[in-house]
């Protein structure tokens, strides 16, 4: 089933000829409390274009997108569709006008099946009666298009983060909207899936749809976007045709400065006694994994969606118990019964999903940062609030978390800054082995460079880092050594010298 055929169906709202302005925002503003998230922004969207929103974490990209999609209502400004002013009290109304959005914070319903999620709201039905036989078949079409090959009747709870991301894209396709907003759709996708998504976006453009793409991946932006709008501190900076931009220009537009990542010094650690040695590890989602980690080493783990990387990290962090195999930490056997035991031994994890496993969303930045380091804050069972405040302030400063005060609730932060809070929490435990599962997910170029620099600094102090990333280039940029996983096994172990993205991809697919 090709995408073109799929897109032939009736779409919500009238179809405009390519190039005409179909949506215009005029002087849009939105504030949260005293925080002006979007400030007098004007822009327009044209039929059949891919329009990218770029900007630093907290620049207001998601907020702007939500204003378009009816999730938020603007304080000031107007929105016009096809030349007439509109007001969307809720997402439902925007959908009715042909606008659909994939959110940055994933929002699949895990108690429904894959097919039910894909076709949510557009179930094949008549007078409220669902046509259940049709559902699987219809859903499978959309799943095939986005490259998610799972049975439509599978429970969504069993999907990995990346699979959920694809599922949401399938859902938004099924809504058959003419304006499709994708807020960081590739942040948790493996490189191959991200590439596939680019093709998909291209096909949507060909079909006359408008795509709004929010992304921190400038290669992606330059590859697919027709126009790019840059936001900074909630304000509109510019809207430029993509042809006039390049990678460096984009970085300067977004950050207002040149971001320099010092070239990686090739370091080889193999001579030293290993910090962590994993042998023949087996567990849920894991068939056979071997791993050696040296002091001060940055070890990357690459692989496809569902290759078992997250499961390996969870076992190392004591969150899941292995069924077989051995682990040695600093020469002693290591079999943590719970994350608390691993933390005591100096092993800390930045989990893959910050919303579900990383953060207490309604709690403050302070309450999140202090949590893992509680044992060191105050004597005996008593807690020293002063020490906790200092600790939190220190890490807010160190990681340059953009937040008004440590007492602000985490859910008022932008996605990237939330990720930094998770990192701060873990670093505050002063780990000897730092496990990072997709640590740069949703983080802007500047912050990515900061985190990279930070990792190097930690490694220089002798801390060992294991980093899982689906962006192969990122592994090549930052790691001393890269292990590739496939089907729950470690299938390759390469010194990061003279290897290319293709080498890694080949291993990841089929040795």
């Amino acid at each position, binding site marked *: 089933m090709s995408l073109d055929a799929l897109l032939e169906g009736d779409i919500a709202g009238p179809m405009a000829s390519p190039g005409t302005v179909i949506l215009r925002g005029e002087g849009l503003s939105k504030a949260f409390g005293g925080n002006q998230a979007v400030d007098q922004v004007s822009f327009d969207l044209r039929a059949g274009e891919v329009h990218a929103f770029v900007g630093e974490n907290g620049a207001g990209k998601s907020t702007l997108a939500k204003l378009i999609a009816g999730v938020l209502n603007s304080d000031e400004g107007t929105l016009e569709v096809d030349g007439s002013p509109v007001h969307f009290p809720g997402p439902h109304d925007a959908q009715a006008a042909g606008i659909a959005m994939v959110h940055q914070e994933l*929002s699949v319903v*895990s108690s*429904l099946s894959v097919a039910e999620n894909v076709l949510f*709201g557009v179930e094949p039905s008549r007078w409220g009666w669902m046509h259940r036989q049709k559902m699987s078949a219809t859903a499978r079409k959309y799943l095939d298009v986005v*490259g998610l090959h*799972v049975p439509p009747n599978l429970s969504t709870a069993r999907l990995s983060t990346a699979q959920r991301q694809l599922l949401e894209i399938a859902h938004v396709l099924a809504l058959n909207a003419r304006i499709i907003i994708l807020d960081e759709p590739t942040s948790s996708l493996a490189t191959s*899936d991200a590439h596939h998504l680019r093709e998909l976006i291209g096909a949507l453009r060909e079909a006359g749809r408008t795509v709004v793409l929010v992304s921190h991946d400038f290669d992606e932006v330059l590859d697919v976007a027709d126009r790019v709008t840059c936001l900074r501190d909630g304000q509109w900076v510019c809207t430029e045709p993509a042809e006039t931009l390049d990678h460096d220009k984009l970085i300067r537009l977004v950050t207002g400065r040149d971001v320099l990542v010092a070239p990686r010094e090739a370091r080889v650690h193999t001579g030293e006694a290993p910090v962590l040695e994993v042998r023949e590890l087996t567990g849920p989602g894991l068939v056979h994994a071997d791993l050696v980690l040296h002091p001060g080493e940055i070890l990357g783990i690459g692989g*496809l969606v*569902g290759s078992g990387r997250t499961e390996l990290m969870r076992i190392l962090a004591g969150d899941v118990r292995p069924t077989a195999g051995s682990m040695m930490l600093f020469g002693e056997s290591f079999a943590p019964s719970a994350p608390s035991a691993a933390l005591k031994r100096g092993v800390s994890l930045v989990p893959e999903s910050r919303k579900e496993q990383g953060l207490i969303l309604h709690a403050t930045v302070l309450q999140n940062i202090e949590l893992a380091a509680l044992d060191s804050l105050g004597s005996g069972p008593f807690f020293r609030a002063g020490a906790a405040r200092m600790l939190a302030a220190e890490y807010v400063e160190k990681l340059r978390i953009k937040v008004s005060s440590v007492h602000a609730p985490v859910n008022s932060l932008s996605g990237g800054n939330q990720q930094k809070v998770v990192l701060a929490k873990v670093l505050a435990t002063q780990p000897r082995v730092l496990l990072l599962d997709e640590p740069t997910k949703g983080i802007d170029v500047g912050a990515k460079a900061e985190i990279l620099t930070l990792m190097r600094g930690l490694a220089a102090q002798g801390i060992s880092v294991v980093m899982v990333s689906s962006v192969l280039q990122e592994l090549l940029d930052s790691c001393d050594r890269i292990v590739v996983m496939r089907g729950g096994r470690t299938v390759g172990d390469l010194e990061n010298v003279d290897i290319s993205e293709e080498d890694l991809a080949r291993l990841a697919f089929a040795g």
Partner: protein
Amino acid sequence: MTMTEKSELSPASSTRRTRGAARLSSMNLHDFGLLGALLLLVCVYAIIAPNFLTEFNLLNVLRQVSIVAIAAVGMTTVILIAGIDLSVGSTVAFSGTLAALFLTERTEIGVIAVLIAVTIAVLAGAGVGLLNGLIIGLLGVPAFIATLATLTGVRGFALLLTEAKPVSVPVGDYSWLGTGHIGPLPVPVLIMALVFFIGYVLLSRMKIGRRIYAVGGNESAARLSGVRVTRLILFVYIFAGACTGLAGCLASARLSSGQPAGFIGFELDVIAAVVVGGTSLMGGRGRLSGTFFGALLIGVLGNGLTLMDVQTYWKQILTGIVIVVAIVVDGIIRRRGSQAS
């Protein structure tokens, strides 16, 4: 498109068959766990409880269970959206009393009068449900505390209506609703079957069912996907209230009287049936078949203990233990089920 083809071979897709099987079997396993517990109980009772395995007694149990089960259909939808309804006991008393009040002055009770009485009870229940829905959906009060308030308020209102006196209904067509038979089957059992069928259609065959599961599973996701959550909450509480009103009507028909002071704590029986039936109190997960077996399990448990002349205090202790055991065993069976595959 080599990528797509290649990723056909990824672990996720290679487990397609086993996964599908797992889902299927885990779904059945849940009912199986409950059904197993139920069958075990029936076997034990068949041996040790005198007169248990008689047609008379079994129909009896079904009839007694039916009122709880009807209210439990509504409660299932409420719990599926991660709500709770504590006002059920008061609503059963209130709606039954209203229906009885309508009938009590009449000398002759015909079919029309009965239908009007049923309608009154159902509407009264739906009215309480609407009130609950408004407090929860519009005012944003947590369901537990909102329905705790209506529990108190509606009870006060029911007592006020009749100065706490039970209201007798002249014997006639109305009590047939609670005690009559069609063929071998008691009328309340048939009405229960009808309500379960409606609930099944609603939850599994209609679009609104998907929305109920979605709101319970992830409210903000559902909202972002365009579900009008407030409306849905209103709908669910009204539906649940209507079920409760119907239960109240059957209860008053069975007792030939409205009992404004009765059914205190009835909601706990109803909730227990739903939860023992496997519906998650966190919302989004559960099925009506489970609710039915849950209600039946609790009903059979009590019936057998009564037949065996177990002292009421021990009955209470044993009921507590069996509920915990049922849920634990059921959990283990389900976990096994999903691991084994």
